[in-house]
């Protein structure tokens, strides 16, 4: 009897597998060969994945109570905070979750930069990563508009106005984006629609990102290719269990902010309802935009600033060719390692300057840091790639 049942199940699995290879797909996930020397920096890919899932799940429940209308949006958020069961938990998880998502992704990108994960044959993995990053920024920006507080409104006004820098058609584009003559109800409504759509687009691009990754497998701290079976271990159980440790630590930081500093990463002005007649003293975007905001403000021309800001992100697309050293990992690149940390310091400095009013010494520092940001990509990296003498590489991942 038992045997018969088992047989039947086998045939059911076989029947489905024959038509939809779902089981061999699961088997691939289990057996997926992964370099055995990945350090904890490699946890941030899956952490970013779980961060996206948290945003989508909390977001769907928030959308059930939120009202995307300029007269009711702010009140509906307060209704969620006060009257919806655990609404405050959903909203704080979603707001803090956005910041935590960016923390994970910034570390994930920094890890890729350090270990040369963008180099051949993983250029397309890198490209789709940048697409995800751009989509995330668009989604986060539109999400921040939805509570319809003062920073929502004025942040939206400043950022959408950037399009007016486009020659000839700029003003037309801005009015088209607004759906009127200023940021208003149509803007809020379309931002809500897009804010609900884009996360699912991100899911699609994430899938492409992972499919491309699985063709050649993960890079590793030594930056050398897998040579033998001895160099790898199956993803499950080794990296599934390690990812759980990473999740635990990540969730602890997440929980600290949600339960004890839920508004620390936001701005107090966003608890004042949007008022087109009153401009806040300083309009600052969310912290994760500050480095790019600093680049925007460093250039004295509006169009120039917009071009430089977008270039700051798009330059990542040519990175695999600007840094043409065959050695991937910074561990074996003494000059690159120094310049890497200088670059990280420069990005943090840009972030700090982006949060300060554009006056006095901050104008000068902003320009200096912006200049260095591009210098790193356009001059430092090509120069190092050519003249640096890398340390001898180990023969294999297994070598001690």
């Amino acid at each position, binding site marked *: 009897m038992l045997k018969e049942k088992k047989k039947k199940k086998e045939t059911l699995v076989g029947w489905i597998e024959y038509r939809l290879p779902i089981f061999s797909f699961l088997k691939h996930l289990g057996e997926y060969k992964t370099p055995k020397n990945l350090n904890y920096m490699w946890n941030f890919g899956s952490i970013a994945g779980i961060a996206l899932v948290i945003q989508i799940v909390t977001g769907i429940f928030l959308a059930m109570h939120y009202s995307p209308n300029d007269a009711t949006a702010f009140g509906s958020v307060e209704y969620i905070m006060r009257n919806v069961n655990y609404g405050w938990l959903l909203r704080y998880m979603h707001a803090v979750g956005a910041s935590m998502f960016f923390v994970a992704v910034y570390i994930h990108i920094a890890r890729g930069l350090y270990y040369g994960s963008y180099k051949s044959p993983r250029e397309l993995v890198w490209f789709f990563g940048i697409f995800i990053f751009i989509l995330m920024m668009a989604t986060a920006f539109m999400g921040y508009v939805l509570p319809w507080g003062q920073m929502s409104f004025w942040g939206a006004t400043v950022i959408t106005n950037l399009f007016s820098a486009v020659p000839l058609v700029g003003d037309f584009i801005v009015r088209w984006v607004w759906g009127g003559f200023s940021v208003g109800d149509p803007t809020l409504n379309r931002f809500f629609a897009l804010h609900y759509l884009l996360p699912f687009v991100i899911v699609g691009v994430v899938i492409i990102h992972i499919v491309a990754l699985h063709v050649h497998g993960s890079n590793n701290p030594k930056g050398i290719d897998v040579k033998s079976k001895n160099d790898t271990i199956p993803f499950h159980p080794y990296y599934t269990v390690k990812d759980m440790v990473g999740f635990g630590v990540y969730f602890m930081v997440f929980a600290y902010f949600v*339960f004890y500093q839920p508004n620390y990463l936001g701005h107090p002005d966003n608890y*004042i309802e949007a008022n087109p007649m009153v401009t806040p003293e300083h309009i600052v975007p969310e912290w994760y935009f500050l480095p790019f905001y600093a680049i925007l403000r460093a250039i004295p021309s509006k169009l120039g600033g917009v071009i430089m800001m977008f270039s700051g992100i798009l330059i990542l697309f040519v990175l695999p060719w600007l840094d043409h050293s065959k050695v991937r990992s910074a561990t074996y690149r003494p000059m690159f390692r120094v310049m890497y940390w200088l670059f990280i310091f420069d990005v943090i400095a840009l972030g700090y300057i982006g949060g300060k009013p554009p006056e*006095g010494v901050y104008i000068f520092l902003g320009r200096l840091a912006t200049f260095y940001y591009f210098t790193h990509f356009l001059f430092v990296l090509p120069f190092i790639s050519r003249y640096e003498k890398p340390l001898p590489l180990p023969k294999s991942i297994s070598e001690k």
Partner: protein
Amino acid sequence: MFLRKILFVFCTVWCSCLSFASNVESPKEIQWPFDGVFGYFDKQAIQRGFHVFREVCQACHSLKYMEYNSLEKVGFSPAEVKAIASEYTTKDGPNDDGDMFDRPSRPTDRFVGPYANEKAARAANNGAYPPDLSLIVKAREGGANYVYSILTGYGDPPKDFKLSPNMHYNPYFSGHQIAMAPPLMDGIVTHSDGSSNNIDELSRDVVTFLQWVSEPEMETRKIMGIKVILYLVVFTVAFYLVKRKVWKDVL
């Protein structure tokens, strides 16, 4: 010489930045019972603060995101809440004849503000608009300390300070002058149980009330946080041990 000049310019610019930043006095630091991981609400203080709000603040300020029945969460009985609500008048309707009508507020209604709209509020206050207080603690840099500092920070302006008409000197407010007249002073409100009513106590009570109004979920949130983080510590340590065991034979 040239370097020294650069340094000098740099320092002057830096100092002018600093003095710009210190335009507003940074708020007084108060130890609140609701601060920190184990922060809690003193319900007696919230009740006294509500009394102060009703006697003083609500003459000009609304509380539009609060319902009367939330008061039950800080120790008022349903009967008391019903009595409090009925002192206010809510506009309702239209009735069967198509007319709007006034009726006594019910516990499920939201707090009724003093003015019909912003224009009415400005007309009654020399053009200034008293902000809604539902979120005041979350909507200001410095939170509870800031609100406390504003309430207790009034004083005489320095000799060279030019005070505009109908304004009051308060170094904790942006620009050092505020349209709100000093709302609290020693003994302006008396408590039925004889609690002390100097300006410091009254301010602390009303700030505690406003903190609760801004974050009514705070106590639940902080208690849940302890449980969640304890759970995560166990979760992380357990998975770390499992990880070590699983990885024992690797390398």
